[in-house]
């Protein structure tokens, strides 16, 4: 780093110093445990396969889209 870069570094440190307090004030484990216990949304693979098949059909046979919309 040259002198100009050093001057910029000094300006950054003086004008935009980081937070003074970097200590964690509380134990986050209770929140972590809640997060771990939260049930995750699980979509069965069969549903994914069905959705993929439907999309493929719509892509291959776009003329079926009006019929599908009518049925819905």
């Amino acid at each position, binding site marked *: 780093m040259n002198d100009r870069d050093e001057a910029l570094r000094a300006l*950054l440190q003086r*004008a935009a110093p980081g937070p003074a307090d970097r200590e964690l004030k509380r134990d986050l484990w209770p929140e972590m445990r809640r997060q771990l216990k939260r049930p995750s949304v699980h979509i069965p693979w069969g549903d994914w396969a069905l959705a993929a098949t439907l999309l493929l059909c719509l892509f291959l046979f776009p003329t079926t889209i009006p019929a599908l919309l009518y049925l819905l």
Partner: protein
Amino acid sequence: MTGVVEVELDQFTRGDMQAFEALFREYQGEVYGWIIRIVHDSGVAEDLTIETFWRIYRARARFDPRRSFGAWARRIATNLALEHLNRRRPEKSLDDSLRMRFPATRTPDPAIGADVRAKVVAALDELPAKLRVTTTLALIEERPYAEIADALGISTNGVKSRVFRAVRLLRKSLEKRGVCP
């Protein structure tokens, strides 16, 4: 590695909740301290610390117990902090940014006027998130380049290159605002 033995890491990779809790308690402060350096907001840093460990827990099977858990955690935390900075970028105003950045910063330098501080913060905020994080860690926090490289998943030369680009952009941006460091 302080206090956490390899056996515990091995147990963690096999899904042992007690081992995970021990790791969490051992590293939560370190991860939080790393994140707050980047995001400068204690609430966000707490949320991202939990999210970091949530990702760690989900990816436990991929962790090699012979490697450094701290370094792995730092990399995940850095990615999350980057995602956060990218997300908040469009809706944050300069005022918000200043309020967030200076709620409890280290002792402000009285020689630097509020307008210069505002201009420096604005110039920093204009940087792309990847360059901003690298600048913060390398120039403001003065972390070793190797540590930054590890956290960002890039080479040391990559860090040097980002610092070089960031310095060029910062200088241009500050000069436009009438600040010539």
